[in-house]
């Protein structure tokens, strides 16, 4: 029983991690070795792909920084809007709440690619192009419905008595959110934040159309440029190295917040 379970877990891990390991190996393999099997094992390895990326113009870490700024800004902006809104919605009457939930759900399911032309027009009209701060606006708008849905459920899970008791202790709305309610739904806020950050990190069509200056590109756009930089060859090595570098911050973020989520779950026991 136990042995077969660990076997299954191993298989599952290999299944899901293999593409990434492949990518990692590729990123350290010299371009020649990638297309030829005749090169001896000890001569296949190189750091050239990383060196090229980091010494490019602009250097690759610039894109990482751009994406981090956009992702962080989007996450903060979305949570600032979504947390109070979700609290308000969660305390509405059940009939109103379900109507709003369906509307928000529909918005969350809407294929946002259909919006990018209209958004481009807006960017031109209000001169929001080529600004990392401005691009967080459409991102926050697009991430808001999902964040709302997740956070409404989280607030609904808290007993109303807690909010009422805090009111009678003399806590105003902001104090209640800050000192009582938000600490109790930290796990939900953390996981929602990760999802928002991921969305901003991965977003392509809007970033492609809103940002054109070389030093302002976000990761997905920059990586697409690497992949399409030559019509005669596919730069597998450089592309793999870019993927690895682009995943590292996310990996760190998830590991960091995972601890918080687990801690939040174990002392969660919301019922007093």
């Amino acid at each position: 029983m136990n042995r077969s379970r660990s076997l299954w877990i191993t298989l599952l891990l290999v299944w899901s991690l293999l593409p990434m390991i492949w990518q990692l190996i590729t990123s350290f393999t010299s371009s020649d070795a990638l297309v030829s099997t005749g090169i001896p094992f000890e001569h296949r390895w190189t750091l050239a792909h990383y060196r090229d990326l980091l010494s490019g113009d602009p250097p690759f870490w610039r894109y990482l920084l751009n994406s981090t700024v956009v992702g962080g800004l989007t996450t903060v902006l979305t949570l600032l809007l979504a947390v109070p809104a979700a609290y308000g919605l969660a305390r509405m009457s059940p009939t109103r709440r379900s109507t709003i939930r369906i509307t928000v759900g529909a918005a969350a399911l809407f294929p946002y690619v259909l919006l990018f032309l209209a958004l481009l027009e807006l960017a031109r009209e209000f001169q929001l192009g080529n600004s990392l701060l401005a691009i967080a606006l459409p991102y926050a708008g697009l991430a808001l419905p999902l964040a709302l849905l997740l956070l409404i459920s989280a607030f609904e899970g808290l007993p109303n008595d807690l909010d009422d008791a805090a009111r009678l202790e003399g806590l105003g709305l902001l104090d209640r959110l800050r000192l009582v309610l938000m600490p109790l739904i930290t796990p939900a806020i953390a996981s929602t934040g990760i999802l928002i950050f991921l969305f901003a990190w991965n977003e392509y069509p809007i970033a492609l159309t809103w940002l054109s200056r070389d030093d302002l590109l976000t990761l997905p756009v920059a990586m697409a440029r690497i992949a399409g930089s030559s019509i005669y060859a596919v730069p597998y090595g450089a592309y793999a190295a870019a993927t690895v570098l682009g995943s590292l911050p996310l990996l760190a973020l998830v590991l960091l917040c995972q601890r918080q989520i687990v801690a939040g779950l174990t002392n969660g026991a919301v019922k007093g």
Partner: protein
Amino acid sequence: MLKLSALGKRFGTRWILRDLNLEVQTGECVALLGPSGCGKSTALRLIAGLEQPDEGNIELEGRPLLGIPAERRRIGMVFQSYALFPHLSVRDNLDLGLRIRGMAPADRRERIDAVLNTIQLVNEADRRPQQLSGGQRQRVALGRALLRNPSVYLLDEPMSNLDAQLRDELRPELRRLILQGPQPVLYVTHDQQEAMALANRIAVLRNGRIEQIGTPQELYFKPETEFVAGFVGRPQINWLNQTRDTRVGIRPEHLHPDDNGCRCRVIGREWLGASQLLLLESNAGQLQMLCSADYQPTEHLGVSWSPEDEHHFDPISGQRLNPS
């Protein structure tokens, strides 16, 4: 003094609470007694400011309360679920309200230590609520209400989540901590025994309206309506089915064996310790009789009662018919 006049609350078109008139004097404890869904908890939430009434007025110490937000009403409320903040230690639970009111740290510490002493949880100060027993949690909730130094206490079924033994232990605590203070206390419960034991006066609620307000003795000896007669007093009152134009009730403790009385057959026997409850079948219907523990009933026996112990009610309106 807390004064409710013509207080009413509805959800949609349905009135949860209507025409509630009640005065709770300084130092007095009034119990709101009724079955679940009778509107008693809604009344408390209106007074606390957690919900707004659709009609009527609330006055505390002569000043109207309506319009003042719940945060500023100075009300000590204890919830059935305790509503302790699960992420804070006992000390921080007690501290939160004081901190918000901007009290100096040294004063806060002093007052919290005093209250921890009163509720006898000095050693548990650094524990989280989920590490405490039900009785301890309830004491923290009481302590939090005490620290608020309120003008009125509202207790919403404070003991219904506790088992019978803990309830017996907590009752004197409640009396010592809260009921003996000068503040008016409104105590919501569905347990008539608890209401009788703790309250100076009891208001019986049914379907959002007051059936009767009176001392425990008045409710027991002179119930104004059939509902009150049935709700107050355990074991429950017997209803005789001998007459059609009045509903006659007689309490089990007012029946006594009498060879010349109404003929009955014993169909059940319940042992209560110091007394016993006999379940009887007679022409007047099923009767319960409370009698002393050493009484040995034969299968058939006679039962009688004195007419002044009978309670008469109008079968349609449910109002009391006895001359008072």
